[in-house]
């Protein structure tokens, strides 16, 4: 019994330990790594990815997967930028309405994902992957391939205004992290995610409307993707079809490395926070100590496999598909 307990405790804290070891490692290699300036840099880079990863966390807890993030982020970013420019191009006007509109667009894409998955009984990875491509295409149609610049001072304040060395967008991300935590642990919906992921048949047998939970989950993920899109636009000051690029690999990697189980029911937003930080600390640290950037992807790939090896109790599973 003790052995199992130790293993469980170890697994629970392993991602955090990895994160601390990484920070220690890079700090020793290059003292400049351990500075508020650099941490702010890591935080800025991770904020949009954290939002996307949080969204997909809920889906993975349900035992499904959402691969539409790249398309969704692009569409939300482009729609936001178009509306923002159209309605006055400054936060001081009605253009601020573009922010909630972007979230609604995210929710709508999520709804379509969920609806296609549940009602047409298409596996979630396929339904969402396809929707992601539709999204990328749509973003291209909307922009005609152009970049849309947002130059409003107030909106750019997300990046430029700093409190205690960190820009506002980091605090926004933190706020949404807390919202995610609240949903996960304090609401019916959050409980339902775990129930569906832990035992779908049983959840159904307990009178839960599993289909509704799934659709709600995809909508929630869509909203978080949209927040990620807004932060991404805030960070670089422009929206384009490529805004969503790379989010799929980053977010799934982060969720898995953070210790959320791919088969559902286990994990949560704190795991995802740690996972995102691990991914970006590695990325930043390798640059700081002067390793070429292209090694990063390789290292991350290996890390994902390691994380899954660690978190899988292979004695309990004889076959995987």
């Amino acid at each position, binding site marked *: 019994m003790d052995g199992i307990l130790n293993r469980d405790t170890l697994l629970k804290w392993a991602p955090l330990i990895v994160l601390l070891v990484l920070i220690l490692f890079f700090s020793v290699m290059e003292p400049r790594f351990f500075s508020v300036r650099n941490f702010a840099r890591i935080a800025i880079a991770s904020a949009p990815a954290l939002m996307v990863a949080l969204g997909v966390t809920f889906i993975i807890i349900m035992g499904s997967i959402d691969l539409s993030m790249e398309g969704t982020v692009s569409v939300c970013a482009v729609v936001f930028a178009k509306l923002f420019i159209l309605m006055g191009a400054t936060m001081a006007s009605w253009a601020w309405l573009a922010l909630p509109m972007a979230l609604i667009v995210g929710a709508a894409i999520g709804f379509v994902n969920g609806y296609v998955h549940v009602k047409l009984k298409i596996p979630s990875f396929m339904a969402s992957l396809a929707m992601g491509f539709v999204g990328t295409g749509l973003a291209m149609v909307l922009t005609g391939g152009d970049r849309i610049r947002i130059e409003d001072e107030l909106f750019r304040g997300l990046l430029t205004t700093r409190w205690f060395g960190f820009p506002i967008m980091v605090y926004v991300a933190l706020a949404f992290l807390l919202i995610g935590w609240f949903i996960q642990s*304090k*609401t*019916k*919906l959050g*409980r*339902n995610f*775990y*129930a569906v992921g*832990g*035992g779908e*048949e*049983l*959840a*159904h*047998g*307990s*009178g*839960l*409307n599993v289909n509704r939970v799934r659709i709600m989950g995809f909508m929630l993920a869509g909203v978080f993707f949209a927040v990620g899109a807004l932060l991404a636009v805030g960070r670089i000051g422009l929206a384009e079809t490529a805004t969503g690029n790379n989010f799929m690999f980053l977010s799934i990697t982060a969720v898995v490395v953070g210790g959320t189980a791919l088969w559902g*029911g*286990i994990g949560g937003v704190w795991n995802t926070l740690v996972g995102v930080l691990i991914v970006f600390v590695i990325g930043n640290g390798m640059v700081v100590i002067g390793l070429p950037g292209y090694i990063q992807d390789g290292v991350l790939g290996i890390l994902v496999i390691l994380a899954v090896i660690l978190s899988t109790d292979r004695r309990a599973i004889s076959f995987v598909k």
Partner: protein
Amino acid sequence: MYQLNKVDKTFPGVHALKAVDFTIGRGEIVGLVGENGAGKSTLMKVIYGAYQPDGGNVTIDGKTVRFANPRQAMDHGIGMVFQEQSLIPNLTVMENIYLGFEQQFVRFGVIDWKKMAAAASAQLAKVKLSIDPSMTTANLSFAQRQLVELAKVLTLEERIDGDLVILLDEPTSVLAREEVELLFSLVRELTSRASFIFVSHRMDEVLELSDRIYVMKDGAVVDVVAQADAKVENIQHKMVGRDVDKEYYREQKQKPYDPSQVLASFENVTVTSSFKDLSFELHPGEVLCLVGTEGSGREAVLRTVFGLEKPTSGTVEVKGSPYGKANARTAVERGVGYVPRERKVEGIVNGMNVYENMTLSQMGKYSTGGILRIGEERALAEKWVERLAIKTPNVYKDCGGLSGGNQQKVVLAKWRSGGSDIILLDHPTRGLDIGAKEDVYDMVREMCDDGVGIILVADTLEEAIGLSHTILVLKDGEFQKRFDGTPGDKPSLFDLVHHMI
């Protein structure tokens, strides 16, 4: 000569085999009987190498052997004929027959399908089955699949030099009478090369085929009878082991139910391919037990009451009106609670803690605008943990870590605390030890006192008789007979078995 000497096997909380001695000689057919949970399947798994014994040893012709897996057992001539479900339906017959042993047909890395087909045809000829070996298995009838299973095991004849021991697990459960005859004559012919262990619930068939019969009860062999001395009644008495203990099933606490009110009713209900033309009424305080063999439609009845199956014809009324659409949600809202058979799979959510599991079906009552009132959930869970004496350190404990009996209590608490007054119990005591079983029996009586109506599919016949007010016997989906189970005037085991088979 294959022998088990004082073989022991323990699982957490269960002593599944207790010093079992078992011998099978060359060309012998040995029957193995016992109730569900008596240890038959564990014993079979030890024999064909799926489990390793904790104590005692296994010998073949006097030499001690130890099998790490079924493959090693096969290499010693021990084969298992599973029930028909164990063939892979999307493969062809020959692929199934040689699954794992394709190497013999491989030339330069490519499988010679013609050669495999010819070899498979030879195997099928042994069981007198003339089908195309390249047929997809899914297209075969149940009886044909059973024979293919046997043919698959018979490939051992060519591979192994010594004697064979072949286990037949409920081989007749899906066969018609003529097919059973055919199988039996086949088995008798094959005894020139192999000995057989025959496991079945059908006592008459065991008596007909076996030279000797091992009777198991509570993990031990209680008797070995030769065919000449075997009588169905004696064997059944030994399987049960004692006269049905009235105390054990809390019969003294069984009170008459209230026939004036109806909680749920079936009127000429048919669900295609499961059961037909079934009528009954469930009253407050009544335990209604469905009795029949596996596949007699008992579970489908429960699923229909719970709204998971839609009746093809007839009327199902729960609390005075039928369900609009087959829907578990409506059932839960009307106070139906389902305690399924596979606790691990369907009863509790692994990874969720005690209070989360208890409020799973009634989160609406413990939330405002979607936000949960966790304090109240905890209070509820603490109350029920105390009331049902659930053994858990606290309500934060992951339910997956509780023992089977305590998981069962959590499931019951889930429904009872939500105010369910129609409880469907599917094998509620399966896999529980005696003490935990008695707790469940106590709970059944308490629920009846509270005016709950219970529909039960019991783990054993004694349990069915001991617990119920009313027994309905089903056979192949057809209603056979209704028995009244008033204490002191309960039907006997034999009364029921007579109508079941």
